[in-house]
């Protein structure tokens, strides 16, 4: 019985390693088969390459009450303090999730360059919108709108860029 199990394990691990190798290159025939790796079992090991991380993303939103728009509020939390983040860095989850959503939005913006409103139907846009609309708010808030900013550098040399501004969305919808 152990021999059978060992053979199965050898086949599983061997296939998994081979699939991992193919996944690094992801030819078109492969990408079509691997649609959704929800458990993250097929790794992509191209850390910080070919395009290294070069900016931070900031998701902000504002609310409309009685026809007046509020100031923009930050949704992405600040990074964990540098003194402790080498050992304790819980904010990385939220910030990485926001980056994942924004990277998806960037891909959609590039894909739908000719028809920009199609971005509204992309899963990343809907995901960001779900995050924004889930924020608690007063009962008289009628609409919300979000924007994505990017930044790089520190202090007075910091560069800010508006990457995307959403359409206003009704809270009743």
């Amino acid at each position, binding site marked *: 019985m152990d021999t059978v199990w060992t053979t199965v394990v050898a086949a599983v691990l061997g296939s998994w390693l081979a699939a991992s190798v193919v996944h690094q290159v992801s030819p078109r025939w492969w990408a079509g088969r691997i649609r959704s790796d*929800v458990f*993250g079992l097929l790794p992509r*090991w191209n850390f910080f390459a070919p395009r290294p991380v070069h900016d931070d993303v900031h998701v902000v939103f504002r609310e409309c009450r009685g026809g007046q728009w509020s100031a923009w509020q930050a949704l992405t939390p600040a990074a964990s303090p540098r003194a402790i983040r080498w050992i304790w860095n819980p904010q990385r989850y939220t910030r990485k*999730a926001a980056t994942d959503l924004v990277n998806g939005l960037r891909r959609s913006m590039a894909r739908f360059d000719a028809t920009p409103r199609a971005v509204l139907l992309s899963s990343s846009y809907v995901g960001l919108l779900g995050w924004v609309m889930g924020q608690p708010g007063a009962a008289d808030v009628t609409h919300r709108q979000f924007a994505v900013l990017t930044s*790089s550098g520190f202090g007075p040399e910091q560069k800010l860029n508006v990457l995307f501004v959403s359409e206003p969305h009704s809270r009743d919808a």
Partner: protein
Amino acid sequence: MTLDPSLALDLTARIAAFGSLVSTLELLAVQREFGPAGVFNRDAVAALSWRGGQNFARIDPLIVFVLVVQAVSSAALAVLGPFAIAGRLATAVCVGARAIGRWRRLLGGDGAEQITSLALIAVALAVLPVPGPARVRLAVAFIAGQLLLSYVTAGIAKLLSPAWRGGTALSEIAATETHGHPLALGVLRRAPRVELLLCWTIIVFECLIPALVLGPVWLAVPALAIGLAFHIGCAVTMGLNSFLWAFPATYPCVLAVRGWLWP
């Protein structure tokens, strides 16, 4: 220097489980993100899921419980190791809880989380229902293979990158709040030749690492020590704290495989 495969797998499982414990405690610290106002809120994540989004409602009331189970089983595995009966149970529970948490979260994953999951699943296949020597060796080879694949892929991807070849990649990363550091940015901007040298050192090291760590012991041990120092440096300067445990955890398996090649 050779490392017994069972000892290698035991060390890998314990260190990976400790990393899993730290990461799970971090997730518990931001558990509000699974609520209606969080980035992992059900509606936001369901939009990204091909299937399964409708099942999030069932798991949501239990997500904190799942994370607590993940933390406890990770701690138990780190303390007991994967070969004791209780350790084998902890391995199975830990792998299952991590899979549920990852499936529900979908976003915010990274390479450290992936290699930890791969290593712990391989450990589970080696020790369940009872440990088998051949399966232990297979798991050790698989984990070592994934580690070498990760470094070589990262090296080749950097070699193909104009930013890495041109020596500007590190200052681009250092200029971000998430992974950067004002001090490091200042140093790199003042010394572009140092940055170019560092970029190429990383490229060459990552591309050549299989030849180094599978070579004779006088090459392998210093190469792994440099790898460990690299991950400590990345944790301190870039905040990649999970990588500090996840990747070095697999080093014992590489040493074991090296021992098969150089008995």
